[in-house]
């Protein structure tokens, strides 16, 4: 065979590969859903997966916050008689922020006789299962409340009833919806930690451009909101240059269901209600807000890779004017306050169709895996780090740090109502929160009545199933009723297989 030099062609191929490796069009990816990155947890969690919301009949917290707003709450319980060693499934030396380490230090200073080892990693199902199989599981784990029911129903976690009784843990100090998420078959399996709720954030400059005011963004009037979505969006020749009202589905779909007066699962978590008319109607509407932009694919791609999709930093959707408004977790206020404090952002509470202000909550919880060798120390650890005085100490450290740099301080949203009572009365002020102060106050006002998914047996599978139904309706054009009817059957099977 004649060996003719084809170096040029080969070089071209190599260059193509190289350019591919270096390229990317400057696009970045916006996180959509996920767990809390430890470096910012718990005050600035990443967008967490949504939790199903309870219907409106949820009960108020068992007791009113005990501490007065003007006084740092104190621990009424005497020190425990504990010693030995515990392994905590969390980061401490590597990557944990001051909100985490300060609270851990409170425990370490109070119990110098207890040796605490850290896994230096966040909860990971594979790692956890492997450690369980090897009999080397941590004594304490921190996981999303949404998935804790999966591990409860599989028998991986210990009930905390003895811990609660022995250490006189007042479950009433935690928000009721958070407690419901960690209560399974009448037993408590986790102590709630942080608390993410949702409000609607509004890009003032975009509204001004189209002649609207923040008060016009009213999620209770779906017909009007669809019109506003059309006004806010910018689509030309099939190319999106600005999103109108991003409904944030599938992750915030439970919020739309709640707004429509429905619930995706019964209050006891044992009956799926995915095919109920309220859920179907909510899905049809939320999908229509997206497809109004042309196609779901174009919408998703623009949201993921368009201007401001980095989400964090100085080039976000508000500074880039690539979004009109969207419902968002309250921790994003911290991001905006820190990264783009001069950007004009308004807010509105998310309103149900009946006009009531609603939100739903997610967050993490501490739990004790089955097989722990030092239950008493593990119990005391999770009690102390979720106590108000630990939270207040941690938030004070962050407030001081923000004061030093001159950045706005919007607080840390804990699942402990007593702690929040003090934090948002004393540590977060009009002065240090600046223009975000009204936003923060509204978030705090809505927190006690937030709704959350109850502990659903096989909760992780349940979430995957309804998420898939939303995506089928969104991406594949499957009628909402059909997608949700399919999901209903599968979801109920999963619930039944994990039910107590």
């Amino acid at each position, binding site marked *: 065979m004649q060996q003719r030099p084809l170096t040029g062609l080969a070089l071209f191929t190599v260059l193509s590969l190289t350019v591919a490796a270096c390229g990317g069009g400057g696009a970045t990816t916006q*996180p959509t859903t996920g767990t809390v990155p430890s470096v910012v947890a718990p005050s600035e969690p990443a967008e967490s997966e949504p939790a199903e919301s309870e219907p409106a009949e949820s009960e108020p917290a068992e007791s009113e916050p005990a501490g007065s707003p003007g006084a740092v709450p104190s621990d009424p319980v005497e020190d425990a008689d504990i010693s030995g060693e515990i392994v905590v499934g969390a980061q401490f030396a590597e990557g944990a922020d001051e909100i985490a380490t300060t609270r851990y230090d409170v425990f370490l200073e109070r119990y110098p006789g207890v040796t605490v080892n850290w896994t230096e990693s966040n909860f990971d199902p594979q790692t956890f299962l492997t450690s369980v199989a090897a009999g080397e599981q941590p004594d304490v784990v921190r996981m999303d409340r949404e998935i804790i029911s999966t591990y409860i129903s599989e028998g991986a976690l210990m009930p905390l009833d003895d811990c609660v009784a022995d250490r006189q843990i007042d479950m009433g100090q935690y928000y009721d919806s958070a407690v419901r998420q960690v209560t399974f078959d009448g037993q408590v399996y986790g102590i709630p930690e942080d608390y993410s709720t949702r409000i609607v954030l509004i890009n003032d400059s975009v509204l001004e451009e189209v002649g609207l005011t923040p008060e016009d963004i009213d999620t209770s009037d779906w017909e009007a909101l669809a019109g506003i979505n059309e006004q806010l969006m910018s689509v030309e020749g099939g190319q999106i240059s600005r999103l109108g009202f991003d409904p944030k589905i599938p992750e915030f779909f439970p919020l739309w269901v709640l707004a429509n007066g429905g619930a995706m699962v019964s209050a006891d978590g044992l009956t799926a209600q995915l095919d109920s008319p309220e859920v179907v109607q909510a899905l049809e509407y939320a999908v229509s807000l997206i497809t109004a932009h042309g196609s779901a694919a174009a919408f998703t*791609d623009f949201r993921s890779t368009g201007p401001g999709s980095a989400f964090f930093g100085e080039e976000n959707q508000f500074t880039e004017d690539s979004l009109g408004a969207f419902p968002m977790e309250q921790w994003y206020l911290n991001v905006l306050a820190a990264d783009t404090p001069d950007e004009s952002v308004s807010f509105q509470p998310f309103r149900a169709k009946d006009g009531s202000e609603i939100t739903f909550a997610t967050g993490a919880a501490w739990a004790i895996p089955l097989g722990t060798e030092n239950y008493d120390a593990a119990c005391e650890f999770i009690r102390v780090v979720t106590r108000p005085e630990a939270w207040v100490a941690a938030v004070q450290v962050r407030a001081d740090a923000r004061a030093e740099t001159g950045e706005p301080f919007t607080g840390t949203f804990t699942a402990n109502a007593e702690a929040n009572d003090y934090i948002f009365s004393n540590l977060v002020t009009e002065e240090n929160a600046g223009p975000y102060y009204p936003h923060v106050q509204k978030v705090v006002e809505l927190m006690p009545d937030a709704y959350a998914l109850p502990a659903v047996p*096989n909760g992780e599978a349940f979430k995957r199933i309804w998420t898939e139904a939303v995506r089928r309706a969104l991406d594949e054009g499957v009628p909402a009723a059909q997608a949700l009817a399919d999901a209903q059957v599968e979801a109920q099977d999963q619930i039944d297989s994990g039910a107590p």
Partner: protein
Amino acid sequence: MTVPRASASSGRRWRVPVGETFWAFMFLLPWIIGFVVFTAGPMLYSLYISFTDYNVIRPPDLVGLENYETLFNDRRIPRALGNTAFYAALNVPLTMIFSLVLAMILLRVGRAAGFFRTAFYLPTVTPAVAVGTLFLLILSGNGLLNQALSVIGIRGPIWLADPDYVKQGIVIMSLWTLGSTVIIYFAALRNVPTELYEAARIDGANSWQQFRNITVPFISGALFFTLIVNTIASLQIFAEVFTMFFGLTQSGPAQSSALFYVIYLFQRAFEDLDLGYASAMAWLLFVIILIITAIQIRFSRRFVYYEGGR
């Protein structure tokens, strides 16, 4: 060489190997132990697990064929298998064609071949997660690929979000990492006797006839090998796609057009803690791969030429 001989009394009883055979077994022993402990043992255990309800936390509970019955009623299984088969059907031939073209180019670049071999192989040693992340950027709506297409007047599709193009986008990503196949073809091409080309040219054969009647038969063994290996790899694709569409940030068509079989298996095992069902899925995939490979071997007898063989 000493060959173990059958006992005169039993007729079929093996004697303890001695001499070279004994030492051959001794040298093989580390591999045999490794195979039994790390491959055969876990495989057999997973077969057992596939007949149980098992979540790692509690001991396995025998449920008979229940997991396999569920497989046939799970509507995600046909979807995942369909996505995987579509990807494999597109990826394997394209990988082989592009690799062969690149290998033939490599054969003709003379001294620079070493450099280009390295260059072509580099993407193969790039971590899968990095590749997945990289192609999230390249395949985005305003990414490099669509920018390149726009130069020639083509408006590229939304590779990462349009269900009609997601799998094609993943194939494009896979084609970037075809270095191993290129190297195999390159080695095979170098073994084709050059005198055959000279004889063919004297007989008036053109380039296509030389390629069709000399090159392809002589590298058919390599083609067949890569067909099998790439088919198996395509049916097991996981890391890159998981990075792009799943993990902490499930996005776009994660549960639809990007739901590949092994990803769904992973979800069932480590998200739903249903390791019994996941094991049954693994065995179904094993059987599918076995059948496909058997068919490929059966048909290979017609097309594969082994020098010195039949």
